[in-house]
């Protein structure tokens, strides 16, 4: 497997591969997200309890799922960067962290906007909400650490260590927060049994989840390509590429 994967550690090869992937993923992500949101927001039946306001689920749930998913991918990249010293994996951490942070912010914001009409409050110190907020801090920590060094490579490596430490700590944080919540407040609004979704609502949600995943992939390709260009700016192939781009534009 390593023989097969090894060429992709080379920035130039990876750059071309990412370009190919990005060309497919970006339009696909846009189409899937459009289908999912239009279906979810416009054509699904209203909820019998929550009326139309439940429709925010089509943005809230996918972003919440993928905020964690992005962290997992970032930690995998960090692990690869630390163990096999792959430079491009280090850069991938920086490419993914802001995407994850924005997904987390979207999840928190849509959650608050949903919570206001349903629970009557913008924010409760519920276990899930708190975990999500801490996840945002972890993302911000990784981003801040990566940009804090005069030597960019040190920043990349430090961020890799922090991402791996964070992923070890994340389950501990998650369970302790859950435990803390049950200790402090007994029955909360979120405790009622989860109603199973009707297929007519479930399908657009699944499509939106897929759309967020595709968008994450496309944005990662884009950001990682930018990172490769920045890090390899002194290499001949980058100069050649930039010149080609300029010629194409003229």
């Amino acid at each position, binding site marked *: 497997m390593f023989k097969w994967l090894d060429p992709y550690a080379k920035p130039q090869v990876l750059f071309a591969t990412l370009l190919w992937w990005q060309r497919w993923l970006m339009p696909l992500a846009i189409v899937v997200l459009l289908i999912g949101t239009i279906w979810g927001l416009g054509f699904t039946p209203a909820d019998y309890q929550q009326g139309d306001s439940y429709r925010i689920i089509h943005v809230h749930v996918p972003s919440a799922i993928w905020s964690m998913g992005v962290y997992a991918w970032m930690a995998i990249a960090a692990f690869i960067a*630390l163990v096999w010293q792959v430079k491009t994996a280090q850069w991938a951490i920086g490419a993914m962290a802001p995407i994850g942070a924005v997904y987390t912010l979207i999840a928190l914001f849509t959650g608050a906007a949903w919570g206001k009409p349903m629970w009557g409050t913008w924010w409760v110190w519920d276990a899930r909400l708190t975990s999500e907020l*801490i996840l945002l*801090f*972890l993302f*911000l*920590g990784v981003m*801040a*650490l990566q940009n*804090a*060094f*005069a*030597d960019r490579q*040190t*920043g990349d*490596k*430090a961020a890799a*260590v*922090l991402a*791996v*430490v*964070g992923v*070890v*700590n994340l389950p*501990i*944080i998650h369970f*302790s*927060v859950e*435990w*803390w919540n049950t*200790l402090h407040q007994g029955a909360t609004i979120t405790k009622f049994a989860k109603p199973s979704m009707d297929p007519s609502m479930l399908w657009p949600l699944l499509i939106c989840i897929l759309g967020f995943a595709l968008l994450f992939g496309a944005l990662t390709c884009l950001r990682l390509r930018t990172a490769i260009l920045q890090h390899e700016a002194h290499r001949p192939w980058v100069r050649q590429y930039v010149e080609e781009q300029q010629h194409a534009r003229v």
Partner: protein
Amino acid sequence: MSHVAVFRATLKRELKLLARQKADWVNPLLFFIIILTLFPLGVGAKPNLLREIAPGVIWIAALLSVLLGAERQFRQDYRDGVLEQLVAARAPLLGYSLAKIAAGWISSGLPLILVSPLLALFLGLSAEALLAVVLTLLLGTPLLSLLSALGAALTLSADKGGILLALVILPLYIPLLIFASAAVEQAGFGLNYQAQLAVLAAMLCVASALVPIAVQKALKLNVG
């Protein structure tokens, strides 16, 4: 040189430095006491209220005062080239890291435990709650020292150390804060808090096995 020899030599040197530079362990302690003084002034001195918020207040003060001392932990050795020499000589950094963490605990964790009976007076804690405070501090402050050493090692050569260290490390403190203050709270109600202590002990075991390796890695990448 073996790990043990490096550990001993570093610890001896650190203790000597602590004995000479008293500010290194006096300042975090004063900071701790001052935060605890500020809380009754800020939220009001009603004994019931103080007793209720005491577990959280004590632990937040402990977190912050350990964090205060953390930034300087490796900085001196980094600036004057000790770390560079250690890396260049291929000396075992693990022993060095462990000695640094131990010295960090002695300078910023141990004084908090020793001063904790004072808290009982300040915040009106019962004897049971005080015992819980001492026990959780005993288990928790080494964990704080481990994690803050990791933060200090990661941000060692960063341009803006202080606030970055807090941003990186404070989220990792959250489980500790939750379980430690829960233990003290339970003790205040006269309930059993062995479960929380067991969890704290487990976290300490895991952290003391894994964190020094991460610290070593972080030190190397800042120097190399």
